[in-house]
């Protein structure tokens, strides 16, 4: 079995944390080295009961899609797009489009090619919005920093 490193549940630097009334979504991260030159980074959203977040593939004018942004780095390169677990897909008449969303939890993964033999830091941010049947939290950005050892 390969090494699985669970890394930091949201770096809680009290200096940047903004007071939020509701935090129905919690993110945690992990990285798994699949070979000497490749690794996969996992992002897991744990979603409170009744709430949901949306797929990365929601069209413009729909609900707030989840967006991953990776900071450019000399240490690694992205391989393909960020994959996501299968969302529940529904046609939303209101938005006039197919809308994919997640309940309870969602796992996203990004393959990377390692350019350095040293420990690699994968950094970036996730933008997401969350709703339940009655209300929504405006889009929010959270940062991640996952170490591939």
């Amino acid at each position: 079995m390969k090494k699985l490193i669970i890394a930091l549940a949201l770096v809680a630097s009290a200096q940047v944390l903004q007071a939020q009334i509701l935090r129905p979504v919690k993110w945690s991260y992990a990285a798994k080295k699949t070979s000497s030159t490749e690794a996969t980074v996992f992002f897991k959203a744990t979603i409170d009961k009744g709430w949901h977040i949306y797929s990365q593939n929601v069209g413009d004018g729909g609900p707030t899609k989840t967006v991953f942004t990776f900071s450019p780095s000399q240490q690694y390169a992205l391989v393909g797009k960020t994959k996501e677990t299968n969302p529940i897909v529904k046609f939303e008449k209101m938005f006039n489009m197919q809308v994919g969303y997640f309940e309870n939890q969602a796992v996203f993964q990004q393959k990377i090619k390692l350019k350095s033999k040293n420990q690699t830091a994968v950094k970036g941010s996730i933008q997401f919005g969350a709703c339940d049947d009655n209300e929504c939290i405006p889009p929010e950005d959270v940062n991640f920093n996952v170490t591939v050892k």
Partner: protein
Amino acid sequence: MKLKYIGLAAILLIAQTVIGIAQTKSSIGYTLTGTVKGIANGEVVLNEYNAKTRMSTKVNTGKLRNGKFVMKGKLSGPKMMSLSFKPGNWGTQIFMENAAISVKVDTAGAQHYDYTKYGSDKGAMLKNVKVTGSTSHADFIGYEIKTKGGKGKEEIFNAQLNYIRPFIAKNPSSVAGIYMLSNHYMFNSGIPLTDLEKLMVTFSGAAKESVYFSNIMQDIDERRAVLPGNYAEDFTLLQGDSTKFTLSSTRGKYVMIDFWASWCKPCREAIPHWKEVYAKYKDKGFEIVSVTNDSRWNDWIKAMDVEQMPWIQTIDEFPVKNMPARVVSKYKHGTIPLYVLLDKEGKILVKSGNEEDIDHKLAEIFKN
């Protein structure tokens, strides 16, 4: 004669001593002595963070030599600060006060972060830190340890409050105590005003003079300002045709502000209901003003085309990057939809995320 001189000399001597004591007392500051494992030579910086402006200011700097440093200074009162080490940017929090404090740091196991995209810094949070000599620090760490864990928000918040309440009752002037409450409040910002005020009256002395106390008081004032009975602050926002709309231009009518967004399904699901309400009351002196939380103009225009709302449409502003929209955040609600019903003079009657609350009030107003 001689006696008189001796007396005078004695008085002078006493006066000098008194002044001397007073001077020593006022010049008692802090001495921070540190040992660092993992960085031998570099710079040590003590920063103070302002939660309101989200800015850090440098309080003191020192040289790190062979893993050791000493810093001296004086504070107006205890304050939570950040201590960082260069090269690199290794940081930790330390509750500083005027005392002889020592800190032992090991860089092993630190957590790395990057906030450069948000106008902040990147570095590592030290996980191996031991502070001695600061009562405030010890008190706050005690709170953190005792309230750690717990499942779910409710349980955590209750554990924190159950620790804070007796602590501040026993130590009403403790700055660590007001800091605990301020930390708790950062996450539990929905705590009922009366509960918060009940805790706040406990504080005295240094705790009451601290910035943590005044920040909470300011927040209480802001929350009070949007309670029913107060005038809603006027605003001017853009409409879909890029003309300006000012809230106060609706004076003389009952007005409901509907905070919504194109991406908010529950907000849009409520629109058919508001169309009925609007049709029922608009000729009796009722107006609706929609304020969207969209940051992309196109999404907003598209949603308005679909929804065809026959009332005033405006778009909120995002003047500060990564901060909530300007007008809606005044109402301190956190989620949308949010409905604010105003009377003819612009006073707040109801503020709620629940449409029924508005319906009831409107039925009461327009019953005749």
